[in-house]
Each structure stands twice: as structure tokens, then as C-alpha cells.
């Protein structure tokens, strides 16, 4: 129990963040993290002793999130359009010319599998090998998804900025570009 507190407790803020970006729903994400922590407590003894706790906990959370998302797509849960726009809202800051809101919208245009890789690697600082274990995919797949995610995110935010450049009148909704 003591090692669980030491290893898992510090992960909770990152777990909340990962769940919230995937679900785009603050309360739903915290519910998911709670589910995840309950499973972690129940299965702690089943964990591989030599395995990394962070990878193990993230994989539990990721699998729960995918189950939740596939259920919501079937209409059992909140529809994604109703998802909390403010869920990941931060004070609007202009950083590197990219608005927070545009970035979040661009992130939403990524397919789920690319978004997961990008978040685990770029935001949660998992190594490529750890991300591969969390997602249960080969490391080569992690790299190709990461590459596609970054290309697509770049194109999406660049397109958003171009549209905004001659901005007068209502702000255009982000258009997807080929």
C-alpha cells in the first residue's frame, strides 16, 4: 500500500489532464480517473513487479477512456458535440502566434489514435517505448502516428492563422485542409 501511495499519488494530476483532453469533459474525465484509481487499488498486487507503475496506470486509464469514448459514439453517453468547451480552457494567451483555442480545436481534428500518442509523448513526457506499452502497439506505430499527428496539427493551426489574417467580421470556424 505504501509503495502504491508513493508511485501513484504523484501521477494523479497528469492522469486528470490526459483524461480531460481525451474526453473534453471535466466531470466525465474525473469520473474516469476515479474508475482508473479504483482499478489500480484493486489490481495493485497483479501488476508486474518489474514493470513501470506509470506505464501500467496510464494503460488502465487509456483503455477506460477508449471504452467510454466508443460508448459515447454509440450515443450512450454525452455526445462529443456536447463536450465541455471550457474543459481545457486556460487563460487566453498568445504564445508562438498560436491561440490556445485554435490549438485545442486543431487537436480535436486529430484522429483519436494520433491524439493519444501526441499527448502521451509531448505532454505527459512518456518515452516512445512507454507510449507503445500504454497503447499496446509497436514502437514503429508510435513513431508514424506521432509524425502524422504533428504534420496534421501544424497544417490545422497554420490554416487557422491564415484564415484569421484578414480578420474582419465573424471569426471563421476552423476549416480542415488537405
Amino acid at each position, binding site marked *: 500500500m505504501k509503495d*502504491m501511495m508513493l508511485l501513484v499519488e504523484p501521477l494523479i*494530476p497528469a492522469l486528470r489532464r490526459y483524461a480531460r483532453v481525451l474526453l473534453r469533459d471535466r466531470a466525465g474525465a474525473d469520473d474516469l480517473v476515479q474508475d482508473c484509481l479504483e482499478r489500480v487499488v*484493486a*489490481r495493485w498486487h497483479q501488476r*508486474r513487479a518489474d514493470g513501470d507503475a506509470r506505464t501500467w496506470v496510464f494503460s488502465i486509464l487509456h483503455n477506460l477512456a477508449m471504452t467510454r469514448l466508443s460508448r459515447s459514439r454509440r450515443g450512450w453517453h454525452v455526445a462529443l458535440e456536447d463536450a465541455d468547451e471550457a474543459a481545457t480552457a486556460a487563460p487566453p494567451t498568445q504564445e508562438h502566434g498560436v491561440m490556445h483555442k485554435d490549438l485545442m480545436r486543431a487537436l480535436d481534428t486529430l484522429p483519436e489514435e494520433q491524439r493519444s500518442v501526441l499527448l502521451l509523448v*509531448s505532454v505527459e513526457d512518456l518515452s516512445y517505448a512507454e507510449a507503445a506499452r500504454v497503447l499496446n502497439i509497436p514502437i514503429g506505430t508510435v*513513431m508514424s502516428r506521432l509524425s502524422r499527428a504533428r504534420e496534421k496539427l501544424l497544417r490545422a493551426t497554420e490554416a487557422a492563422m491564415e484564415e484569421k489574417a484578414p480578420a474582419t467580421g465573424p471569426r471563421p470556424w476552423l476549416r480542415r485542409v488537405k
Partner: protein
Amino acid sequence: MTGRPITEDDLHAYIDEALDPTRRGEVLAYLDAHPEVERRVAAMAAQRRALRSALAPVAEEPVPPELSLARIIEARQSRWRSRWVPTWRSAAAAVLMVGLGGIGGWFARGTAPAASGIAALKEEAAANYQVYAADHIRPVELRAGDREELVTWISQRLKHPVAVPDLSRSGYRFMGGRLVATPHGAAALFLYDDDRGTRVAVLVRPMEVEGDTPMSPHREGPLAGYAWADRGIGYSLVADAPSASLHPLANEVRQQADRVGAASSISAIDSLKRKRILP
């Protein structure tokens, strides 16, 4: 210098600050010589920083009390204590859940009627799922590649021809299986997984009672499942997944068992044909 060509993977590792100093130097030299690539890599690196700073505040929020690990542990322990008091049966179920199944079942014998029939089958399937499906080192004794050996072994021990259900049409790969012990004798445990790592277990054993029972759903803690019995053989399919997603899988297993049952009793069909009961 290592002289290795710079790859796309190197560029991403550079963006993620995951390169060792030597390789990083090589990538920097490459970027100096290729301004177009440099521009793209710099834009991606800037985007990575923007994403991190945009999402940093979420991780800095105070953690709500429902997500306190100490509280979750405490809640679980008090559920356990309250579960222990009311009946020996549920206490035994709780013990089964942590993998001390055999011992728990033994203690339960003297004080409450042990579950039998389909009810027992459900508990056995859940307990075996908890132990074996969660195992990352050796979930199965014989792997999918040794299917024939597994089928021969299991059929011999169960004294009944058993075929491995095929769930590949539903996206579940056969991982392998093993013989497991239950209070009602030997049983076969087959494990499957899908691309997301969800594992499904199918427990099969001969039934002394309730040998023909319609399919019904069951739930043991976080696990959902379906159990039924047909011509003296009981089946329970369990997984840590929504119950509705398991129903088609259970139907699939039942249909296949039907076909196998029919095929293994060709002589019986022949005799029915001779008696003109079947066309």
C-alpha cells in the same frame, strides 16, 4: 560522429528532447544544412511547447477529494469490511476476487450452501478471469500456436470433446488456454484479446446439475459475463467490459459449440436419419 543518416524518427526525438548529446549535435548540423526541414522542425517544436503550456494549468489544479488515493483505499477497505459481515457467501466471493478462491470456497462450505450449477460456473469464470486474464507474464499455459495440443489435453481431462471457440470475427484473437481447477472438477479456460488489450475469458466444464440452461448475464464486481449450459457442458464468457458488448461474443461461442456438438455426433445424426427423424 556516428555517420548514421538522420531519420524522421531522429527529428521527432530532437523535438521531444530525447536525443543523447552526440546524436543531437548531428541533428543540429543536419538542420543547419537543410533550412526547409529546420523551419518545419522549429514549428513543430514551438507547437509542442504551446501544447504543454496550454495544458499545464490542468495538472496544476488542486486534486478533488474524490480522487484522493488514500480515500479510495479507505472506501475499498470499508466495503470489504461491510461485505464480510452479512453473509459468508459474499465474504467467500470477496476472497475469491483476490485469488484465494480455493481456500475461500472451502471455508464457505460449512456455513452456507456452496453455489452449484450455473451460479457456481459464473463465480468460477470470474475468479479465473481475475487471476489469469490479469497476468502479463503467463496468462495461458499453451499458446494459440499449440491449439491442437491444447484441445487434445483439455478434451482428455474433461472427458468430452471441446473445441476452441473462434472470436476472430468479433475482433478477438485467441491467446491460448489452460486447464484450471474448480470445486466441481477440471475446467478449460480460453483467453482472447483485442487490439486495445481487452481480454475475454471463456470457461468450459461439464455440469453435474443444470446441464441445459438458457443464457443469462452476470456481473461480479467490475466484470460482466454471460453463462449457459448445453447438453451437459457449461460455458461462461467474462471480461472487464460492458455487458452489452459481450452478448454477441457469447452468442458466437454458443453457435459454434452447437455446430461442433452436431459434428461430433454425426453417428447420432445418422441414426436419427435412419429412423427418419431427420431428413
